[in-house]
C-alpha cells in the first residue's frame, strides 16, 4: 500500500497549502462579491415576505414565490439555507469553515491528480515533474472550471437558477465529457480519436445546461460579471498551484517510499 500512502500524504500536504492560499485569494476576489450579493438577496427576501403577507395581484410577486418553492430545496426558510439549519456566524467562524472546505476540496482534487501521477509514473518509469504537474493542473482547470462554467456560469447568491439537482447532473456530465475528450486527444494520437475527443468536448454544450426561462434578480449584472472573472481567476490559481505542488510533493514522497521498499 506504499503508493496509496504516498498519494494520500502528498495530497494532504499540497491540499493544505493550496487550500490556505486560495482562502486568502478568495478573501480579496470572490468573498467580497458574495457578501455584496447577499445584501441584495436579503433585501429581496424581505420584499418577498411583505408580498406574501399582503396578497398582491402583481405577477412579479407570484414569480418570486414560485421560484422559492421550485428551486430552493431547503423549503420556505428566511434564507436559502433553510429554516433552523445551522450556519456559521459571519466573520471569523464563517471564514474558518470556508478555509476548512477549501482545504478539503484541494485535498480531494489533489488525490485525483496524484492518482494520475502515480499511474503515469508506473507506465513511463519516471516521476511526473512539477512542470508536467502544472499542465495536469491546467487540464483540471479546463475540466472542472472552464467547461462547466460555460453552461453554468459562476453564480452569486440571490440569483435564481434552474433546479439544483438538474444543474448538478449537467455539471457532472460536462466534467466527465470534457475529461474524456481531453484524454482522447492527449493520449490517443490518432485522427479518429481526436475527432471523437472534440465531439465529446462539445457534446454537453450542444445539449445545453438547464436554465430558467426568465431570471429576475436584484443582483446587478456588473456584480455577476465581476464574480465570473473572480471565480475563474481564483480557480486558475488554485489549479496551477495544486498541479505543480502535488506533483512535486508526490515525486519526493514516492521516491522516498520506493527507496525504503
Amino acid at each position, binding site marked *: *500500500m506504499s*503508493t*496509496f500512502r504516498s*498519494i*494520500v500524504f502528498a*495530497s494532504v500536504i499540497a491540499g493544505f497549502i493550496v487550500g490556505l492560499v486560495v482562502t486568502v485569494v*478568495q478573501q480579496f*476576489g*470572490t*468573498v467580497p462579491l*458574495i457578501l455584496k450579493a447577499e445584501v441584495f438577496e436579503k433585501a429581496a427576501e424581505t420584499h418577498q415576505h411583505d408580498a406574501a403577507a399582503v396578497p398582491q395581484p402583481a405577477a412579479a410577486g407570484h414569480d418570486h414565490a414560485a421560484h422559492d418553492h421550485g*428551486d*430552493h*430545496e*431547503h423549503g420556505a426558510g428566511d434564507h*436559502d*439555507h*433553510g429554516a433552523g*439549519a*445551522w*450556519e*456559521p456566524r459571519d466573520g471569523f467562524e*464563517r471564514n474558518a*469553515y*470556508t478555509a*476548512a*472546505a*477549501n482545504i*478539503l*476540496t484541494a*485535498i*480531494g*482534487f*489533489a*488525490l*485525483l491528480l*496524484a*492518482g*494520475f501521477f*502515480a*499511474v503515469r509514473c*508506473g*507506465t513511463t518509469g519516471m516521476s511526473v515533474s512539477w512542470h508536467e504537474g502544472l499542465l495536469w493542473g491546467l487540464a483540471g482547470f479546463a475540466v*472542472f*472550471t472552464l467547461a*462547466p*462554467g460555460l453552461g*453554468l*456560469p*459562476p*453564480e*452569486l*447568491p440571490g440569483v435564481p*437558477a434552474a433546479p*439544483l439537482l438538474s*444543474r*448538478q447532473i449537467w*455539471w457532472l456530465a460536462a466534467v466527465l465529457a470534457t475529461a474524456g475528450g481531453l484524454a482522447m486527444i492527449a493520449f490517443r494520437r490518432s485522427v479518429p480519436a481526436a475527432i471523437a475527443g472534440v465531439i465529446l468536448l462539445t457534446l454537453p454544450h450542444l445539449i445545453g445546461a438547464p436554465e430558467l426561462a426568465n431570471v429576475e434578480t436584484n443582483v446587478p449584472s456588473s456584480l455577476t460579471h465581476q464574480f465570473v472573472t473572480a*471565480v475563474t481567476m481564483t*480557480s486558475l490559481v488554485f489549479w496551477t498551484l495544486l498541479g505543480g505542488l502535488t506533483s512535486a510533493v508526490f515525486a519526493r514522497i514516492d521516491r522516498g517510499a520506493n527507496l525504503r521498499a
Partner: protein
Amino acid sequence: MSQSQLADAQVSAQISAQATLPVAAGQVGRLSQAVMAMVLGVFVVGMVGFSHIDVVHNAAHDVRHSNAFPCH
C-alpha cells in the same frame, strides 16, 4: 523444431515470464491503489461541494460559490 530448440524456447519463455511477471504485478497493485485514492478524492470533493445536507451546504457555502459548483 528439434527437441533442444523446443527446450530452449521453453526456457527463454520461462525467463521472460519471470522477468515480466513481478513488474506486471507491481503495476496492477500501483494502478488499483491509485484508483482507490482517486475514489477517495471524488468522495471528499462530492461531500464538500455537492452534498444536499443543509449543514454541509451552509458550512461550505462560500467555497461552493467560489468554485462555481451548482449551489442553492
